[in-house]
């Protein structure tokens, strides 16, 4: 496994941690005060920081560090997670996500925003820390003279970004004699986990050697005889004596990411400390003591507070880094405990494995083959055994059930909750609402609704677009809302649910609804409809899906860049989905998307058209009927209408549209499939005959060929032949006069 692969895994984990972080923060925002939630949030940031440190992603580390410090204040109940605090935290989570993305894909982040948040985070971390004066006043008096000269000359930030501010510790009478030439004794004994996590003792020691002059002794007493030795075991320990100008924290920082997997003791050398000019008693800073003893804990807090107070003259970034560095010690110990908790929690919460998507896809393909093969087998058995009672037949039926079950199970592997996508939306709502100066709350429901991963991946973009639209155009400004007697804070509700084998995603805003007058005017201006067109409210609402339609008067950063709802509609359709809108003036609009649960299989009606076998997605069909001659009416030169229960519906000859035949078929000889298409309105599709219904495995045409207008995909039937799956919407659109070729060129530009 090379470095890039490891890094890739790290970024994958980051994604998960970021999701965890955001959902935790949102929970807190909703008033959840469970310490475990706070811990989860803290762990997420800490893990990202840890990994980022291992890969030398300095920007990420330093931001995560500041963030973590503030979170720690929340965790230790020093900072109340109020709405305002959480607002900053959520923004920080966004920046953290940006930093992760920037580290992965290159690119840059908004520096000013990051810096601003660093300041805000710091302010929060400092705000609730108890005033340093009350605690330390009596103690440092004696040491004040020694500390004074240093306080005026804080050292420049070192490479690691952790700026030691030595005076605070002198000031404090703590155990940190950060004086040139201090000697420390370090006992370092790695456990085997250290190596199994990819750390390397030699590298740690080498890092250590860069800090100061050191002498090192290897303790090999634990080394067993060669035949007893576990090649992956850890047998060596080292005692190091190091002379350095750096503080004990800096020494510990070397072991930061290995600390939990080794026995580590860092203490000022006995001999050295007795020679100190300052009358200080070195306190061995043992990790466990730190965690258990409240006295030491207090000291750490004071340390933090003092660092803060003293660093006020330093630059803000340096201040944060310094403060953070002080807090580090306490927090790493706590984090170690948190890690253990996390491991336990993970073990309890059902076991999961991470599987390469390719492998799952291969399995799905194979199962698809299996289904086809089984169908082929059934068919040939039926052909050869008309009685249908033989043992073979019974066996086949069982096989069929099993295959179906296997298929369902395999599909379930790919099924994922829509939660991650919904979470991303909450960020978009936050950002866009900020940008346009609106106050908007996103309420999500049914986040755990599962749907195929490919569907999830593909709905993110259209959903983003719609959310932006809803924030930008849907919800009114607070002033307008107040004037209308509504809550100044707008609400966008995002719901997911399963309904009859599809997933239904609803996006409802409580804004002003669609301004039908304006939409209509715009459509007339853009030549989308005739000026005297008489449209129903529903038809007007659906105009927003027309290509090139955008009602934004001013082209803003957020929406209205010429690509509008038509693109959204197109991408939903490409997924085999439908989208519709219902709007009530003054009360808001609701977009409803209905999507297939999976893109791999489809329930279809197998029909014959001009000697060819076609599959029509069952979801598109409203009803089927055998037209009577009296129900068919000619309309103009080429159009024909069919009357169904006293309403007239245009008749579309599928064979003609697809160029399978050159003359219109006689409707009376065929079957009409009543379909409902996008944008409302029904059409009767004429086919020659219905063969039956069946679940078919969708095969891409694009993989080896190109997109074919009017055809959604292909499938393989029981006899091994390929059948085409009809793209009902495209066919209906074609029947409206848009030619399929035009549709094709549109698709190319879109």
């Amino acid at each position: 496994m090379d470095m890039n692969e490891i890094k890739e895994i790290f970024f994958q984990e980051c994604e998960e941690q970021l999701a965890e972080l955001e959902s935790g923060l949102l929970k807190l925002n909703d008033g959840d005060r469970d310490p475990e939630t706070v811990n989860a949030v803290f762990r997420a940031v800490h893990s990202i920081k840890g990994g980022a440190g291992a890969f030398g992603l300095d920007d990420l580390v330093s931001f995560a560090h500041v963030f973590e410090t503030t979170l720690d204040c929340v965790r230790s109940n020093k900072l109340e997670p109020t709405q305002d605090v959480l607002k900053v935290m959520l923004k920080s989570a966004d920046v953290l996500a940006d930093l992760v993305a920037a580290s992965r894909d290159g690119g840059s982040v908004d520096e000013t925003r990051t810096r601003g948040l660093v300041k805000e985070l710091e302010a929060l971390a400092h705000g609730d820390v108890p005033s340093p004066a009350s605690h330390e006043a009596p103690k440092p008096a004696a040491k004040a003279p020694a500390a004074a000269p240093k306080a005026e000359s804080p050292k420049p930030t070192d490479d690691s970004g952790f700026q030691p501010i030595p005076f605070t510790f002198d000031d404090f009478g703590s155990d940190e004699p950060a004086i040139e030439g201090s000697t420390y004794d370090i006992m370092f004994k790695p456990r085997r986990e250290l190596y199994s996590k990819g750390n390397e003792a030699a590298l740690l020691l080498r890092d250590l050697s860069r800090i100061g002059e050191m002498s090192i002794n290897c303790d090999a007493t634990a080394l067993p005889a060669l035949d007893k030795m576990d090649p992956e075991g850890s047998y060596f320990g080292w005692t190091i004596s190091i002379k350095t100008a750096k503080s004990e924290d800096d020494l510990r920082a070397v072991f930061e990411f290995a600390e939990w997997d080794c026995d580590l003791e860092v203490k000022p050398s006995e001999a050295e400390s007795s020679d100190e000019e300052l009358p200080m008693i070195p306190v061995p800073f043992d990790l466990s003591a730190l965690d258990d003893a409240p006295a030491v804990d207090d000291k750490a807090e004071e340390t933090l507070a003092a660092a803060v107070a003293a660093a006020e003259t330093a630059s803000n970034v340096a201040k944060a880094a310094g403060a953070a560095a002080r807090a580090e010690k306490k927090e790493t110990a706590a984090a170690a405990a948190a890690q253990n908790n996390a491991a336990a929690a993970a073990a309890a919460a059902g076991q999961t494995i991470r599987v390469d998507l390719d492998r799952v896809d291969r399995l799905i393909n194979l199962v698809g083959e299996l289904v086809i093969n089984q169908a082929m087998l059934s068919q040939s058995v039926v052909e050869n055994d008309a009685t249908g009672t033989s043992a073979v037949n019974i066996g086949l039926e069982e096989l069929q059930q099993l295959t179906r079950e296997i298929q369902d199970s395999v599909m379930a592997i790919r099924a994922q909750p829509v939660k991650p996508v919904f979470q991303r939306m909450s960020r978009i709502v936050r950002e866009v609402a900020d940008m346009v100066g609106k106050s908007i709350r996103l309420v999500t429901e049914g986040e755990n609704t599962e749907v195929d991963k490919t569907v999830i991946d593909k709905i993110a973009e259209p959903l983003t677009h719609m959310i932006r639209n809803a924030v930008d155009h849907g919800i009114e400004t607070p002033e307008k809302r107040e004037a209308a007697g509504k809550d100044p804070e707008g609400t966008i509700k995002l719901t997911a649910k399963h309904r009859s084998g599809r997933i239904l995603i609803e996006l409802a805003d409580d804004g002003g609804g669609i301004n039908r007058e304006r939409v209509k005017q715009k459509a007339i201006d853009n030549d989308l409809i005739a000026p005297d067109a008489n449209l129903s409210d529903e038809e007007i609402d659906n105009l927003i899906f027309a290509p090139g339609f955008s009602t934004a008067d001013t082209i803003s950063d957020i929406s209205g860049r010429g690509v509008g709802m038509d693109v959204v509609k197109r991408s939903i359709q490409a997924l085999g989905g439908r989208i519709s809108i219902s709007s009530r003036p003054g009360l808001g609009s609701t977009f409803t998307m209905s999507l297939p649960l999976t893109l791999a299989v489809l329930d279809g009606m197998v029909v014959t058209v001009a000697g060819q076998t076609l599959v029509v997605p069952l979801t598109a069909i409203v009803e089927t009927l055998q037209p009577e001659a009296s129900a068919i009416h000619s309309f103009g030169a080429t159009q024909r209408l069919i009357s169904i229960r006293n309403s007239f519906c245009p008749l579309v000859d599928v064979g003609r549209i697809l160029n399978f035949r050159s003359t219109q078929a006689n409707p009376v000889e065929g079957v009409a499939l009543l379909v409902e298409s996008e944008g409302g309105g029904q059409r009767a599709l004429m086919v020659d005959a219905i063969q039956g219904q069946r679940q078919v495995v969708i095969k891409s045409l694009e993989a080896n060929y190109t997109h074919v207008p009017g055809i959604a995909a292909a499938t393989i039937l029981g006899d091994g032949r390929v059948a085409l799956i009809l793209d009902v919407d495209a066919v209906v659109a074609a029947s409206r006069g848009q030619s399929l070729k035009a549709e094709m060129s549109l698709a190319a530009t879109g």
Partner: protein
Amino acid sequence: MSMSYAVKNLVQGSQELIAFRIGDQEFCVNIMSVREIRGWTPATPMPHAPAYVMGIVNLRGAVLPIVDLSARLGMGEAEPTPRYVIIVAHMRERVVGLLVEAVSDILTITDENIQPVPEVSSDLERQCARGILAIDKRMICLIDLDWLFPEKESEAA
């Protein structure tokens, strides 16, 4: 066997070609781009497809478009019989089936054997042919597979 071919390629800089027949003419493609050769099965016609795309067939679960090479070369649409074969070939990232009358030969040649295409008036021949081979008094045209589906058309999807 494939091993020895590969070795030969390395040593002599030679390449292997599969030659096939359409009408009374012979053509060939590089063997490295050929995945398999299979018998003709009826294809499902595609709407709005160019005349030379016969349709699609099932290749072990994948959808394989079939190109009537005769029609593509402007030699008239083929009327395939069960004796016709489909050469399954890689074409950039796609896999397509080429309908030909019969596979006639496997040739091992070096680059020197390939003669440039003479100046002819027809664009079609100039575009499709990468070179001409003279083998045993036969003339065999080396076809450029990338040309079969023009890039523009594939982009239209």
